[in-house]
């Protein structure tokens, strides 16, 4: 699974960093950095982070190469 964060929406509420600190990181007070590839053991946390995002900016999905088509 992969993630991409729509950083044009992101307002640095950092809910994702609290809930999945191995995947998301604040650089300074507001700049969000994240790991785009999700290891299996982080998937549950990443899903919680995506659900909790106040601006719903986190997209979790299969990479194109993993799609059937």
């Amino acid at each position, binding site marked *: 699974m992969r*993630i991409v964060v729509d950083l*044009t929406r992101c307002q640095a509420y950092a809910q994702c960093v609290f809930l999945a600190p191995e995947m998301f990181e604040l650089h*300074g007070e507001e700049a969000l950095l994240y790991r785009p590839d999700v290891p299996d053991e982080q998937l549950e946390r990443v899903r919680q982070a995506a659900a909790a995002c106040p601006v719903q900016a986190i997209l979790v999905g299969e990479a194109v*190469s993993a799609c059937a088509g």
Partner: protein
Amino acid sequence: MPGDLREGRIVIVGASLAGLRAAETLREKGFTGTLTVVGDEPRPPYDRPPLSKQVLLGKAAANATELPTRWDPDAEWRLGVRATGLDPIGKRVLLADGESLPFDRLLIATGTRARPWPNPQEAALDGVFTLRTCDDAGRLADRLAAGPRRVLVIGAGFTGSEIASACRERGIEVTVAERGPAPLVGALGGTLSRLAAGMQRAHGVDLRCGVTVTALRGNGRFTGADLSDGSRIDADVCVVAMGAVRNVEWLADAGLAAGPQGVACDAGCRAFNMYGIVTDDVFVAGDVSRFPHPLFDYQMLSLEHWGNAVAQAEVAAHNMVSPGPLRRPHLAVPVFWSSQFGFNIKSVGVPTFSDQVVIAQGSLAARRLVAVYGYRGRITAAVTVNMAKWLEYYQRLIETAAPFPPGPGAADGHPLVTEFPIPSDVPDPKGLSHGPTVALTGHLPDRRLTVVRRAC
């Protein structure tokens, strides 16, 4: 062909952010026909912004940024194949491998590439890089990991500044050379560019403004560069960050209004032909497009913004399969972010479309602020530095063409009226090493009708 296309053939050229989001949206809107996505890079769509951030910081691998899909777009992916031409009458896309793809609707989403160093021999020196693709980022990240003595970055736009920031964070010495008076000045104007210069210097960047790089030196390997002020930089890595070039050469014979500024389209993302007549089967989205925006006097905008690629791709896809009256305009206000030196910079509107600027909240001293830009008495843009939570408010002011300067009453004890607006001080982009990532390109679809010829 009736306006709402459910079956038939759609071809998308450009397999990146705009291409992927368009493909998904087509399926979401009920398109069940064949969908082919052509991309000259050998890999599936990936995300570029992390390439100058996480990847250069060594926090993510260059090949890890493949984009997630919202759902399977059920497309045929023709990757590693370049589109070489468009036959508008036969309605075919010509491919480098000799094949041609017939279409009922075409989406042009070929984006941009890095502007190369003008001298090809110098550009070919080992250690000279540009940064646009995943491979570029992988190679550059490897070099940074090897611990170069000094990196020279040419151009202090967003990408150049982010590269410099990553270098400093990794403890690498870095020199930034910029022809303009300060970093980011082409995007943010004078006031914030001075803040950017301060940020760079505070983080130990050797920032040289008002200079050009006259030559890259080296014998096979890059060893340094000469500057126009007579000085010389010794470095073992050079990153050329001089902006982007639109990928329009393949359209040279297509009869479209395509030029160095991009492919002109209307608010519905339909391409204009070279006579300024709108086509009905060729659409454009993402970095390669130029489109008119009502908030900016209907001038044509060229944006290199992630958010625009997504929003425009969705509108284009919707319109490709919808009958005329159900088509939508692409009116989204431009939004952009950059992170560098631990700061989060966000912008909404077009800061260069301004004559004045005011610090509406926060302050330069606190290094957290909201700068609001005005043009002839109305608000046209806002930029936040580490104050992103307020941006929405100013976006609404831009959308409603609210008067500039904004009214009094900021909640941080910072009465706006006392802060004098000052000239926004936006230079002519011609005098800069970095290309602004947003450009106003006039009103005419065919104004830049220079005939572009294929590079090779």
